[in-house]
């Protein structure tokens, strides 16, 4: 503490300082002064919470949209269900609108137009991210479902299993294995995109870093620190995904 004050005074006065002294002052100022690390920590907490919520919402929406769209496309010729056709239309509009507009614009509209009166920016942000992620996840899952050999569906149905059981026990497990890398990619993008909710006032990691920058007039350490924290989070995520993928590959043993 005294060390920091003394070296800070040297820097402010323009006296010559060593690289170590500079590093110490800026690092202390960015992360330790006034217990600022707590702001980053609570920011990381929010980031993870938003990611988790958006992930769950995205997966639920994605699975729902993908299954409805696949079921619609796989109807027997001549046996078209009008309700399914209508719902399928809505799903298509959803995917088109979400994929066709920037994430940032969606956040601003949700935060300042649709939920303009809400003060709960984090929830609004998580909701927006989840809805956004759902559209991408839906297309990834749909691709996975379509990539499973048609013979698998035929074999399941020929045994007398109904469509839902065949999907649940045969098609979906194989699709999940095939799409895991793409899904992991989407989850990583989602984790990093949580930084965007700072534009509507969501107090996540980047919001904390920006607060520190505006108080200390020093950008390098808070932002690089933030980048390193995101990197570590993503690496942990990738590691977990790798474990999961290896477990799913059990049936490839020869």
């Amino acid at each position, binding site marked *: 503490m005294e060390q920091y004050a003394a070296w800070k005074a040297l820097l402010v006065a323009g006296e010559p300082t060593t690289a170590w002294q500079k590093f110490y002052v800026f690092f202390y100022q960015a992360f330790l002064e006034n217990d600022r690390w707590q702001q980053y920590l609570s920011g990381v907490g929010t980031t993870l919470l938003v990611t988790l919520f958006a992930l769950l919402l995205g997966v639920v929406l994605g699975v729902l949209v993908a299954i409805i769209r696949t079921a619609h496309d796989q109807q027997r010729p001549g046996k078209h269900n009008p309700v399914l056709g209508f719902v399928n239309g809505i799903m298509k509009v959803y995917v088109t609108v979400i994929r066709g507009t920037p994430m940032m614009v969606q956040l601003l509209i949700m935060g300042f137009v649709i939920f303009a009166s809400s003060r709960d920016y984090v929830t609004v942000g998580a909701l927006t991210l989840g809805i956004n992620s759902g559209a991408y996840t839906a297309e990834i899952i749909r691709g996975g479902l379509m990539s499973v050999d048609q013979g*698998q569906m035929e074999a399941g149905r020929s045994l007398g299993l109904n469509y839902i059981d065949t999907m649940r026990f045969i098609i979906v497990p194989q699709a999940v*294995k095939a799409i895991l890398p793409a899904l992991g990619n989407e989850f990583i993008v989602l984790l990093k995109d949580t930084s965007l909710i700072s534009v509507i006032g969501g107090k996540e990691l980047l919001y904390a870093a920006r607060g520190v920058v505006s108080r200390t007039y020093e950008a390098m350490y808070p932002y690089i620190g933030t980048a390193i924290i995101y990197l570590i989070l993503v690496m942990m995520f990738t590691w977990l995904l790798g474990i999961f993928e290896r477990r799913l590959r059990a*049936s490839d043993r020869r």
Partner: protein
Amino acid sequence: MIAVKDLKKNFEGLEVLKGVDLEVKKGECVVFIGPSGSGKSTFLRCLNLLEVPTSGEIIFDGVSMTDPGTDIDKMRQRMGMVFQHFNLFPNMTILKNLTLAPIRTKHLTKAQAEQKAMELLKRVGLEDKAGGYPAQLSGGQKQRVAIVRALCMDPEVMLFDEPTSALDPEMVGEVLDVMRELANSGMTMVCVTHEMGFAREVADRVLFLEDGKILEEGTPEQIFGNPQQARTKEFLNKVL
């Protein structure tokens, strides 16, 4: 047991089946032969409605398969099918492959299904593979498992769609042995195959399909020994 009346099937304007009639009695083994593209597989796939016929009627055990009110899943539980490419479920162990359908359709309890699966696996000599995955099996073993998978549902009819066409020549015999044993045990069978030796030996009736129509039918002796149609003779000369 199965009655097919004037079955027609179009694929986007292409007429694949041009009116096929067939009557299969209980315990009979009927074999379809014919050139590729003649509609053999399509016909077989129409029998359990994997392909929806354009017109015509299929009656299985007194119930119309083509009637929209029929519970097709219930009917399919009574008809086993074996595919050219096995279509085992790669994400499950062999035992799970065999017991999934009987358990899910409440045909058998888990314990009964597993017991039955092991008994049948033993019959085809694969009981030691129960815990393995399909990727660990050879083609012939996969097809034997696929036959067992269908048998686990205690079907009344078995449909075979070119079951040996995707196999190494060495492995054809082991699959045909299982089919032969099945036919001898009195199973009703409808087969599409290029194995003329099998057709001659096992079939009760051979049908020659050409261009979406049954051109000639009869006992194996009639078809292979004394074919009436010039086209049948030509085909048999080429393949035998």
